[in-house]
């Protein structure tokens, strides 16, 4: 029915338009950044006007916010959560710690660069980013989705071996199920 390229383009455009206006954020906070989420979501900054709302479980969520430093112990859980999420899925790295380690750059138990372990679509700089910055990050992600450039999940599938190598490098006892991609 929609085998030719042009009609697929139109379908993608409609898909992306719908996805952009309904981002469900997984209520999962790592590190200190999660404290910026309540003001972002509630009436003061009201992220819901952009279609951003909280979701209870990974399988219902589209967007994973990594809010701040990520310990190797939490990384294990985050990877598992990310792999349970269903397409379409996006990751926002939130705060300096996810970019280059931030103030925990020499800590023995926090990772320094998140995009070595999970595909990150948007980084929000700051320590901590204010709700304005968070909303700017959300709108940037929406722009990317409209342009069809928020393809972190596809990249993850493609380069799974590279990501796995990095993940197993910091998690020596790998006991997680190998999901069937």
């Amino acid at each position, binding site marked *: 029915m929609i085998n030719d390229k042009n009609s697929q383009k139109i379908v993608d455009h409609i898909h992306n338009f719908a996805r952009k206006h309904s981002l469900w954020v997984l209520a999962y906070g790592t590190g200190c950044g999660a404290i910026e989420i309540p003001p972002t979501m509630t009436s003061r900054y009201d992220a819901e006007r952009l279609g951003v709302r909280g979701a209870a479980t990974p399988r219902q969520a589209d967007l994973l916010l990594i809010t701040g430093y990520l310990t*190797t*112990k939490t990384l*294990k859980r985050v990877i598992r959560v990310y792999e349970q999420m269903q397409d379409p899925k996006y990751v926002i790295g939130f705060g300096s710690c996810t*970019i*280059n*380690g931030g103030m925990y*750059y*020499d*800590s*023995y*138990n*926090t*990772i*320094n*660069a998140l995009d*070595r372990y999970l595909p990150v679509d948007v980084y929000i700089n700051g320590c901590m980013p204010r709700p304005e910055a968070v909303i700017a990050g959300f709108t940037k992600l929406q722009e990317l989705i409209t342009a069809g450039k928020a393809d972190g999940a596809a990249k993850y599938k493609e380069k799974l071996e590279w990501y796995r190598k*990095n993940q197993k*490098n*910091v*998690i*020596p*006892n790998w006991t997680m199920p190998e999901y069937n991609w």
Partner: protein
Amino acid sequence: MKENKVKLAKYLKEHFPAIIEKDYNYNRIDFSINRELVPSVLRLLKEESGYIHLSHISCVDWLEEEEFELVFIIWSPVDKIKILIHTRIDRNNPVMDNIDKIWRQANTYEREIKEMYGIEFTGLEAADEFLLEDWNGMPPMRRDFDTAAYASNKYYNRPGREDAMDVREEIARHSGEEIPDFAKKYSR
């Protein structure tokens, strides 16, 4: 307060002649004793003097003196006095008596100290892992553990982290924006 502290010091001196006292202002008093007598001192204070609350067990690494110092902080809600019991143990063979028969909550502190400093508590009943997962190597809170070297070895250090770099223009170029004139004077 003062007379209570004097009374307490005298009382402990009677039972444990080896104990060394150090008085502080306000509601704090410190005692030092060798490690074999610590459980007896704690039990005596808990059961006879009303120091029923264990606030904390802390550990200090005296690397130069090749010793660990353990500090037991206990508190009496009646006397309103905080007692710190110090003891030194050998750094190369760190073994301490387990006190979780006196206070059950000591178990948690002991597990943490075991993991972070590698001190063995005799007969400690605990799972292998507490705060750290998959850790093999030197306990990370020891002073000779080089955390920066460990992190740069194990985790990826993104280039550009060097301090005092002016990344303003690079960011502006990257995002296709211009630095306004009034902001240019802040560029180095």
